[in-house]
């Protein structure tokens, strides 16, 4: 079994991403949406914590939310891929359960 975790909060303000990273199991996927996409930024004070998990976890950022916030692929960590809403639906369908970190 594998879970899809969604994180919609900025990791600089709220501890949701941190808690999610500490609870997700190997092979799970974390989708960063809304203000959660700031967790994908490279060169930030929390980048290393996220980077360390790439590989054992799949980390994906929602493009429409990145664009809204002026963040393009050049600004995010290597190994984080992006998707759109169709991809979000596909991710939800192919994982066994979805857990939102609010």
């Amino acid at each position: 079994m594998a879970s899809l975790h969604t994180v919609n909060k900025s990791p600089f303000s709220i501890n949701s991403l941190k808690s999610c990273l500490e609870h997700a199991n190997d092979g799970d996927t974390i989708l960063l949406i809304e203000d959660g996409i700031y967790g994908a930024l490279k060169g930030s004070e929390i980048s290393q914590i996220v980077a360390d998990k790439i590989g054992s976890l799949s980390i994906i950022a929602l493009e429409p939310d990145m664009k809204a916030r002026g963040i393009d692929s050049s600004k995010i960590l290597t190994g984080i891929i992006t998707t759109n809403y169709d991809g979000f639906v596909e991710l939800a369908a192919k994982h066994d359960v979805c857990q939102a970190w609010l």
Partner: protein
Amino acid sequence: MSEQVKKFLYVNRKAPYGTIYALESLEVVLIGAAFDQDVSLAFIDDGVFQLTKGQDTKEIGVKNFSPTYRALGDYEVTKLYVEKESLIERGLSTDDLQELTYEDEDDDWAEKPSIRIVSRKEMGELMGNQDVVLSF
């Protein structure tokens, strides 16, 4: 309606009273109990504050719903997983929590503790083994 039995996990990550999520989560659990599913509750992060004893809300004029956790056993909600690391980070120990129990009908109605202290790793595994996860 409930031929199918699914594993439901209610994840509580927020402190009581400052926001309504803890109370409205409890309201879902109480209603959900009637559906005969396999129910577990997880208390992590600030959610562990929901279970502390000695809550007295008179002076803030808000209803004290902490006694309701003691009623969960009667609703056959008997698995309350509390994360050890979340307690420690907050300077809490199990002594700070209410004693919650249920009567085990498979064991001659023996009174047993509902709270199960688990590690963060065990909590992650529990989360990964559910059919439906509701987050509050």
